């Protein structure tokens, strides 16, 4: 392969990329390093290699943050949010992308506008509303808020995937005898599946890491999420940093695992070959 770029361009771009990679990876390296050290050593020198490896940090973190319960809560909230967002948004996006109804441009604009509204703006009214409905301390209630919060983004993203599908595919399916539902379910959905996967991944990450709503709406010990439990590890007067680092690492692991696992499918282009490319 002949490279078009000059050697200088290549050197500069690699240097820059190396810098970015370092910036991205340094905190994680620090996290791993310090999660293996006793608190006293961390305070002494956060950058030093551990003198003794302290695995108890992990067991302590697991027990103190009650990860057996809080992880389950996080999983339930994240899973419910993903399922709700993906089903409702894919249907909405399909309709917005395909059914040419003039006034629905307003709806599209509304969705776009809502992605810019900060949650802090309406968290109080929402709280009182949920309190009236008895949904405080209900993890499914929180999943519902996340769904509402992330749906506009998901709809806008999926809309572009649906628009990219050639109209003829739909028409071919209709001529083949498919109902509108079958067109959506058996033709459109498999084709936009990379988009849905992307949405699931982003929404999943967001809900897993979400803090403000979780801490506002979940106040009982037994239904807090992993992130909140992690936050509660740092005490007002003293914190065991080794334990906190270990807890942070435990929280990050599922996310990293998911990305590594999904990476290949993520990139895979499904639409190739349906029509003349």
């Amino acid at each position: 392969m002949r490279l078009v770029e000059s050697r200088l361009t290549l050197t500069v771009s690699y240097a820059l990329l190396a810098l970015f990679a370092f910036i991205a990876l340094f905190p994680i390296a620090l996290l791993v390093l310090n999660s293996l050290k006793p608190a006293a050593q961390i305070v002494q020198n956060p950058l030093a290699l551990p003198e003794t490896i302290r695995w108890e940090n992990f067991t302590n973190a697991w027990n103190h943050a009650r990860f057996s319960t809080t992880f389950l809560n996080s999983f339930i909230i994240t899973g419910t949010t993903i399922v709700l967002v993906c089903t409702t948004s894919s249907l909405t996006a399909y309709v917005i992308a395909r059914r040419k109804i003039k006034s629905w441009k307003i709806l599209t604009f509304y969705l776009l506008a809502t992605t810019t509204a900060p949650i802090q703006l309406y968290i109080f009214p929402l709280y009182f509303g949920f309190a009236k409905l008895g949904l405080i301390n209900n993890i499914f209630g929180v999943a519902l808020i996340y769904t509402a919060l992330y749906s506009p983004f998901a709809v806008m993203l999926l809309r572009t995937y649906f628009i990219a599908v050639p109209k003829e595919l739909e028409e071919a399916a209709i001529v083949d005898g498919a109902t509108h539902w079958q067109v959506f379910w058996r033709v459109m959905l498999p084709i936009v599946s990379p988009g849905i996967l992307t949405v699931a991944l982003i929404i999943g990450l967001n809900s897993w890491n979400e803090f403000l709503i979780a801490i506002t709406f979940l106040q009982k010990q037994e239904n807090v999420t992993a992130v909140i439990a992690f936050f509660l590890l740092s005490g007002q007067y003293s914190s065991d940093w080794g334990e906190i680092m270990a807890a942070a690492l435990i929280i990050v692991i599922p996310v990293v695992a998911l990305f590594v696992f999904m990476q290949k499918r993520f990139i895979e282009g499904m639409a190739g070959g349906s029509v003349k490319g």
Partner: protein
Amino acid sequence: MANVAIEKVRKSYGAVDVLHEVSVDIADGEFVVLVGPSGCGKSTLLRMIAGLEDISGGTISIAGRVVNDLPPKQRDISMVFQNYALYPHMTVGENMAFSMTLAGAPAGEKQKRVAEAAQILGLTPLLDRYPRQLSGGQRQRVAMGRSIVRNPQVFLFDEPLSNLDAKLRGAMRAEIKSLHRRLATTIVYVTHDQVEAMTMADRIVVMNGGHIEQIGRPLDLYDNPQSTFVAGFIGSPSMNLLNGRFDTLGARDIFRLDDGTALPMPAGTSKQGSTKGVYGIRPDYLKLSTGEVGFPAKIVVVEPLGSETQITATVGDQTVVILSHDRVSVEPDETIFLAPQVERVCLFDEAGRRISRSDA
């Protein structure tokens, strides 16, 4: 198998009419090609037969049943799209079987019908591949296979060969034609390529601006175009259409071009009160004459093609194309004399309508 009757069909988008009371009768088992320049409404008409577009007025019936308000799947038609429209997530076999899967057909029957269609089209070794793994021609065949499996009463083709290269297009043309002979199903085929229309059709419907210009057998259209549009559209290179007026020279009727050149008129052609008109003669029927018989023209370009030589020349300020099947040795800027085969001349009035010969 079925006939298709299109009666006074209209299509309008708001105030814009794209089809004006179009009527065509397509017989059972006939291969009809709708041809015309882009935007003439041919694809719209096909999509109306398919049920993908609403019908603004008139009726379309398939096998004697008015289908205006029936959804596509109840019309018993199948359609092949220009860009194939194969389902990318299904294998060739699944693509072909999709309509039967939707209808809940038993697996055994599905397999049998797919195997039959695959055999006809030579797709058997490709049944487990995905569309992205196929070449353009193979994709086109799969799209046709998907239609055959349904065993419809009418096949609809929407410019199916436009995305293929010239060589493959020729091969697929022959394949579609032999497929028609084999299945004997009614076919409505849309194309903008008059060569496809001429080579494949039993009858051609020439459309222009939402109207039907002429319906007829390929050679009828070639020999007897009823308008300058059809004359210019059918045949390649297209018919020479020279502007001028009807005149007399002594006792003889002649056609005088704008620059004064006199052209001979076919016997028994009346002027029908029109003084201005158009003189149409196909490039094949303009002969290079030896000696000074005919009218003079100045050569612009000579294109030898082997079996024939195409010569572009000017008469006054109008361009004529001559197709000579003999080897000729002429050079640009040379003046030649052209003798039209008078019995092959088509005369048109000022509005571009054919002037008939009968009423002499």
